[in-house]
């Protein structure tokens, strides 16, 4: 079934390429709806949500057995939720493009569907090579969408996007290969399934992460370096400050659906990768570097938020807001506790919905006015009341208004960071082991203010105020596609599901949170038990004679490491 999620859109993409261009829209709609249907069947009838921490629907086919590479797939509830987001956005992407794309529709819809398949592949993969292949493959369709259907500076944007993310992921690949090399050469066979041989399966690499350094597992300093390598590619993808500069450019130049899918799902490949690889495979590295990553995330939240505030291009503003928002998401991840992790995963979904919707709304205005400049546009509440209502709604979702989706996840990310760390100490009931603390939450919470500042700045310019329209534009001369002044039924129909999802996740997130309890708790427990393998703390050293063994270990390892370098 999982293979169907990946293959269906890709097959339909090929169909589009073969069919006459008049049929492109129809095939696209059918393809994405079928993907959504398959997802719903899996979610409702096949996936056992009560066992969310377990990999389910596992399928494995040999691929390149000589290297231990397998076509291995499986999902836990986190992957399921992100697959759900992908499948949910699919039809919206296709339908929202009907009027925006008039030239070469075949190429457009074909790539869009291929992208849907590739993204599903990333979330289904249970083999590092398979993951990597899909992860990189998503670049191609989006490169095509941006460079062929973007605005004026699209070529440069597409190239930068491609090269930047590609370079980043090469470093990640190096980290993955190192992990597998370690698994193949440094670990005794039989320590766990797949130990001591070449394999790229997540399961083996996750087991390796939990192996004590005494038994051949990676000691903390090695994990830290591997973590650093792994996170580069994902940090570029997220994007984490200071690796974010490709994003505003790519967003502004991308066609609407490109922006939606970029903000909606593609950025989440980065955070999902961090969860699977950085936390799952190098937990000691995550513990060591959590404060560093968290500081970068917090800088991103505040800094990108301030940068939003001085944008004139409304799309660029929303693009920078993604940098700011995903800072919360990364912060939640590196709280390394159950609440933070769940908040983070929920944030991935919520950000996809609300920011995706904002990009759709901006696209709708762009189709009518051919400008995104807040200097030329303003006071649209008078001209487009329906559009404005949706704009205010999704802006509030983005601000994190309680009752809408953003709040729950944002609060949980902050709360996770707040309760993480030794400060909670004695007498406290709800503290957890972790490496952040209230100061991290307090500084990140400045984002609450900054977000309000820039979102209301945007709403104040675009929605409220005196009506401002670009020169030479009149309501009657609205456009080649005969779009009405305000939204038409198709556009409203695209926005309604998003709005409903925002409300539902805002008022009743409990089912989703329930499904996240098990996997995030498992992850938190994993990280916590990996903590025992940290270099033995000085306190224990003084009291415990046996502590010599682990401290001796890194020295021998360093020599083998250097030998490898030559």
């Amino acid at each position: 079934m999982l293979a169907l999620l990946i293959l269906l859109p890709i097959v339909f993409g090929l169909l589009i390429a073969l069919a006459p261009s008049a049929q492109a829209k129809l095939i696209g709609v059918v393809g994405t709806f079928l993907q959504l249907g398959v997802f719903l069947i899996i979610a409702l009838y096949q996936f056992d949500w009560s066992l969310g921490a377990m990999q389910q629907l596992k399928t494995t086919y040999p691929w390149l057995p000589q290297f231990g590479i397998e076509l291995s797939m499986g999902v836990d509830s986190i992957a399921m939720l992100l697959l759900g987001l992908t499948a949910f956005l699919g039809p919206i992407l296709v339908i929202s493009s009907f009027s925006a794309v008039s030239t070469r529709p075949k190429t457009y819809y074909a790539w869009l569907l291929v992208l849907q398949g590739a993204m599903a592949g990333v979330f289904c993969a249970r083999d590092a090579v398979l993951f990597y292949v899909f992860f990189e493959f998503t670049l191609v369709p989006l490169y095509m969408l941006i460079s062929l259907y973007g605005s004026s500076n699209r070529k440069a944007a597409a190239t930068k996007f491609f090269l930047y993310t590609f370079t980043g992921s090469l470093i990640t690949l190096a980290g993955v290969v190192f992990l597998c090399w370690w698994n193949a050469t440094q670990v005794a066979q039989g320590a766990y399934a797949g130990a001591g041989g070449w394999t790229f399966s997540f399961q083996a690499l996750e087991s390796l992460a939990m192996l004590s350094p005494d038994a051949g597992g990676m000691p903390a300093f090695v994990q830290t370096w591997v973590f650093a390598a792994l996170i580069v590619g994902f940090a570029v993808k997220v994007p984490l400050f200071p690796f974010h500069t490709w994003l505003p450019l790519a967003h502004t130049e991308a066609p609407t659906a490109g922006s939606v899918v970029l903000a909606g799902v593609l950025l989440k490949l980065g955070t999902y990768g961090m969860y699977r690889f950085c936390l799952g495979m190098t937990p000691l590295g995550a513990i060591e570097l959590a404060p560093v990553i968290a500081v970068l995330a917090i800088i991103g939240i505040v800094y990108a938020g301030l940068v939003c505030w001085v944008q004139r291009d409304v799309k660029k503003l929303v693009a920078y807001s993604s940098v700011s928002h995903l800072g919360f998401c990364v912060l939640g991840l590196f709280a390394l506790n159950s609440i933070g992790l769940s908040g983070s995963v929920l944030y991935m979904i919520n950000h996809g919905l609300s920011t995706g919707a904002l990009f759709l709304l901006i696209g709708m205005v762009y189709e009518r006015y051919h400008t995104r400049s807040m200097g030329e546009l303003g006071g649209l509440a008078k001209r487009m009341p329906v559009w404005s209502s949706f704009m205010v709604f999704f802006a509030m979702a983005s601000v994190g208004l309680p009752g809408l989706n953003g709040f729950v996840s944002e609060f949980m990310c902050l709360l996770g960071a707040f309760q993480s760390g030794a400060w909670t100490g004695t007498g406290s009931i709800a503290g957890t082991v972790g490496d952040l603390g209230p100061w991290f939450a307090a500084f990140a919470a400045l984002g609450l203010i900054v977000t309000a500042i820039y979102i209301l700045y945007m709403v104040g310019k675009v929605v409220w105020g005196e009506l401002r329209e670009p020169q030479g534009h009149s309501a009657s001369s609205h456009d080649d596609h005969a779009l009405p002044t305000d939204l038409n039924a198709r556009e409203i129909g695209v926005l309604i599901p998003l709005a409903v999802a925002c409300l539902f996740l805002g008022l009743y997130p409990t089912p989703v949170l329930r499904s996240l309890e098990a996997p995030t708790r498992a992850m938190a427990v994993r990280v916590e038990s990996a903590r025992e393998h940290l270099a033995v703390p000085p306190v224990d050293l003084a009291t415990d004679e046996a502590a010599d063994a682990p401290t001796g270990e890194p020295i021998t390892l360093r020599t083998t490491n250097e030998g490898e370098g030559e």
Partner: protein
Amino acid sequence: MTSGLDMLTPLADLIGSGALAAPPAGEKAAGAVHGDIGAWVMAIPFLPLLGSLLCVLCAIFKVKSKLPAWITVAGLAGAFVAAFVMFQQTTGADGGSQWAVAKAFDWINFQWGSEGQALVANFSFYVDSLTCLWMLFVTGLATLIALYASEYMSHDKGPGYCRFFFAFNLFVFSMACLVMGDNLLLLFLGWEGVGLCSYLLIGYFYKKESAVAAAKKAFIMNRIGDLGLSLGVMLTFVHFGTLEYAQLFHDPEMFPKYLALAQAGDFASIPWQVELIPILLAVGAFGKSAQFPLYVWLPDAMEGPTPVSALIHAATMVTAGVYLVARFLPVFAANQAALGLVILIGAFTALLSATIAMRQYDIKRIMAYSTVSQLGYMFVGVAVLAPSGGAFHVFTHAFFKATLFLCCGAVMHGFAGQLDLRKLSGVMSMKGWLIVSLAMLVGCLNLAGVPFTAGYFSKDMILAESFVNGHAIAGWVLLITAGLTAYYTFRVFFRVFVGPTHAEPGEDLHPHEGESMEEAKANFHAHAPGWAINLVLGILLVGSILVAFLYPMHWADDMIATSTAGGIGAGDHTGTVLGMDPHKVMYYVSAVFGVTGILIAAFLHGPKGLWSLGIGNRSEAETSRADALVPKVGPVAHLAERKWLVDELYHATIAMPLRVIAHISHALDRLLVDGLVNLFGWLPRLFGRTIRPAQNGLLHSYAIRMVGGVGVVVLLVVLVTLL
């Protein structure tokens, strides 16, 4: 196997709402509330929510009638009835603390620890007498003001009307969540929800740039407070492991434990986390209730339609901060510094905004500053551990301040937006304005604290307790402020409502066809209020008087005593005022201050004749005796008129620098952060440029280099093997 369908079964809770959870064991039978009030409790938030949804439907179906207003009035009246039943059932005769929790449905319910720890924040409501006190005036006034607004907003029938009543209903829903929520997160939902409605309604006239800016300012200022509140919520959760009142207030290991420690004077045993919670909560309260330094948004919020100013920015929403402090008084009492902070800020804000109000000309703004000032009283009231005084002042203030605002609104409505007290005079003697003027008079008497009015009694409770509990400085500041309040209140009354008849239309004047602006001004006739406005003002007029009778009944004392704020009296303090028992002499002392203020107003602004007891001599609208006084006071009067330049100060020290930082960040982002990336991208190209001459296309050159390359590799291999 649990399938995904089963995941959704908790949705059943949504449908079968209204179950009333019994208080957990440990709370004795006194915790039981009479009868099954679950359905009534649910009606209070969800009727307005239904109303707001119906208003959306009205907007979709392009309703052009007054239907949204009638939906709203009906829904809110229903909520008021429900609140009254809730009040009746909750406050029985048997005394003792009574409370109940009624759950609607799960909101956030996340099990996170291996030992069953959970983050639980449901849509469920905590009912005790404090809840009832607040919800009674919130729903009651909301109903009346919705009726008033049906007429006031009638010129906007259509989409604007729907939008107005949508936000109005949503506001009451949010306010109900804020006050009734049984956990801090639902309180936060209401807290931000009322902020959103306030934003939408201040910016109702969205074509006016000033309205848009004011709306934005209100939201952002509130968000600064919300930052403190949200950190306070987190700290509460991390320390106590729960956000639910049922546990926080009634588990003997939680608030009761620290309250007991504080009452025993053992502050050393209270951990810093618990001491920090009230300070963080107070920051939130100062934002929402417009206290220094976060008060500047409230006067600007007067850009909204006047019913909104009356309901949200005077009677209800701005008291949310006072509610927060009153509700969390057990944990505030555990930290003397937090109480001191609240007293300090409250008293300072009361004085500061009263001085500003004295020098404003816009009557609505005067009322706005007076609200800020009165909120200061309420904060002092709860923080000197006289929560019944604070809460009673909230209650009485809600009535008379709503009355005052609605009178200002009627004037504004009738005189084409005119609010300048120099351009209006003698409204009472105009035809059709009698009820408005009488209501205004009653409101002014209450605000000025004239003896035997409700405002007088509630203010007295705060003043007396300040002295009794040893906060004499705060008491004196508030006494002086009471004098100033009486002055500026009657300045408005004497200038606008009595005296020689004069009326200039305001800026909302639209000339008729073929009429110049001058002609329109000359032909201007005030538009006297219709039945809805008169009816509402009449009810409020009577209500504001009757509220005073609650004082001898000790209603507020009883209400507070049975709530979570009960039993937190300051003990056996015996502070004095002028060497006498404040409980006995405060009636006289405060009456002296109030009456003096009124007399000064009468002398400076009163017209000739009986209204000013013969000491006034104003004969025209524009000028008064006070004008001659201004130059003598010098820059102080001018600075007060300019609001002590606080807005300018904030702009210069916070807004501008932040904007500059934002610009610098943006420049850095393009030049430095992206510049480095681009530089990195250039390196391969640079490398390509330098070695490009090598690609000369000559076969023999390639051959030579190939041989050379192979040679180097061989050499390296040999060297490595040898070493």
